[in-house]
């Protein structure tokens, strides 16, 4: 009912005039409303006769495919166009990011130039919560080994995880997109990706970290590093294969620097998360992030070594 209140009064007059002119007209319901019978919704940026409105709606559908004419960014329909995916499409895109292949460009083959915001948003949310939850679980496991460790729910880590991941998925693609557009004049054949396509690629490439983070519960250090390296390789490969067609025509130096920066930032995110959320066992509660290898055992010989408090 909220959208009905947003429509200005003169538009209702227009709608009733339209209904009076064409008594057999089909009324369409507004997006996302339980509408009672006879409710006419007029799109905010449509005007003129009912025929024109029908054409606008028709062309809105085709416009999504041809990218000619889009509803204004102040309308709800604009944002709905970014969530225009089905379950099978989302699953397909996730599979595409998990199995990157050298010839296959994620944007052209999987997205087919129709990026969505559902995948990146909910993959980031899931990753943030899974990081916080499994990080907390490792603390529980650590406490069982070493009862002197103080357990606490560490709820603030959810905030940290969420902010970090969302910033990464929005700011890094922004920088990348800006850089690629700046270098556009050097390239002739392949145009740059749109900002949303870049965000989409980054968002879906983070999916492989979700099972990795769960597997990091296994308290075997070399196995954790193995899983981490594997996930990083898959994720970075997906990004590199997607970006390669675009930077291929640039000078070698720029291409090399760009791709290595992308991979480096990705690696930084992965190792940062590993160190912040998964402090290895055993652990002194207020120590700074310790090394992964065990520290010298120059104290009493207990079953588990203790780290030095600096």
């Amino acid at each position, binding site marked *: 009912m909220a959208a009905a209140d947003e429509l200005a009064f003169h538009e209702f007059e227009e709608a009733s005039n339209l209904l009076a002119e064409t008594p057999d007209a089909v009324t369409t319901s507004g997006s996302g409303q*339980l509408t009672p019978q006879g409710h006419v919704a007029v799109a905010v940026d449509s005007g003129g006769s009912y025929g024109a409105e029908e054409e606008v709606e028709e062309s809105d559908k085709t416009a999504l495919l041809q990218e000619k004419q889009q509803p204004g960014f102040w309308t709800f329909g604009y944002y709905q166009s*970014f*969530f*225009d*995916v089905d379950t*099978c499409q989302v699953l397909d895109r996730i599979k595409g990011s998990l199995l990157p292949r050298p010839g296959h460009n994620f944007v052209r083959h999987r997205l087919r130039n129709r990026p969505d915001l559902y995948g990146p948003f909910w993959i980031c949310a899931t990753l943030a*919560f899974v990081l916080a939850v499994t990080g907390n679980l490792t603390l529980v496991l650590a406490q069982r080994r070493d009862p002197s460790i103080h357990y*606490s729910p560490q*709820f603030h880590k959810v905030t940290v995880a969420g902010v970090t991941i969302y910033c990464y998925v929005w700011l890094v693609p922004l920088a990348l997109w800006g850089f690629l557009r700046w270098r556009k004049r050097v390239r002739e054949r392949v145009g740059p990706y749109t900002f949303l396509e870049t965000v989409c690629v980054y968002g879906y490439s983070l999916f492989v970290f979700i099972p990795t983070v769960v597997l990091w519960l296994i308290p075997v250090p070399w196995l954790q590093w193995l899983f981490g390296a594997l996930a990083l390789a898959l994720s970075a490969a997906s990004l590199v294969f997607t970006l390669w067609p675009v930077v291929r025509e640039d000078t070698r130096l720029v291409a090399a620097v760009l791709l290595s920066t992308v991979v480096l930032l990705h690696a930084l995110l992965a190792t940062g998360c590993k160190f912040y959320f998964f402090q290895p066992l055993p652990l002194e509660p207020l120590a700074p992030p310790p090394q992964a290898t065990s520290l010298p055992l120059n104290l009493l010989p207990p079953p588990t070594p203790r780290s030095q408090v600096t």
Partner: protein
Amino acid sequence: MRSHIREFDSSTLNESVQNTIMRDLKAVGKKFMHVLYPRKSNTLLRDWDLWGPLILCVTLALMLQRSSVDSEKDGGPQFAEVFVIVWFGAVTITLNSKLLGGNISFFQSLCVLGYCILPLTVAMLVCRLVLLAEQGPINFMVRLFVVIVMFTWSIVASTAFLADSQPPNRKALAIYPVFLFYFVISWMILTFTPQ
């Protein structure tokens, strides 16, 4: 905060306060029953109200409070955090389902999501009672079992009400955030330790 189904609104102005409160309480209680025994019915959707979710959210946030002996940084969720998570989470899920093309209104969806926190609030009560006994692995197993059962109950209840409003090929996309939402709340309940 009630939907407009009465024709003569002014007639309720003259009744006694007790009548008004009892009527609202009965409506809230009726919806609680619908959540506890979920069937496909329209009651929650037709006469939505936000009193129930508010009562449940405040109860849950109060019960999740710890004593402030611990340092602020390392502790469990504070009252404001629980509140923000529940309401922002519900708003985000509602926006998500509307953006995916669902035909449910904003407040109806908030109402359903809020009322379906009832099983988890019951789980919190049970956990607090169980924690009065001695700590140990059995204690933890009991709490885990109760939380898992109530989590499943919440999901089943909210799916029964919300699933029909989504286009058929996007149902899973709309239900997954609900699953994540109740999972986070269950996690907060399970990790609660009263020190």
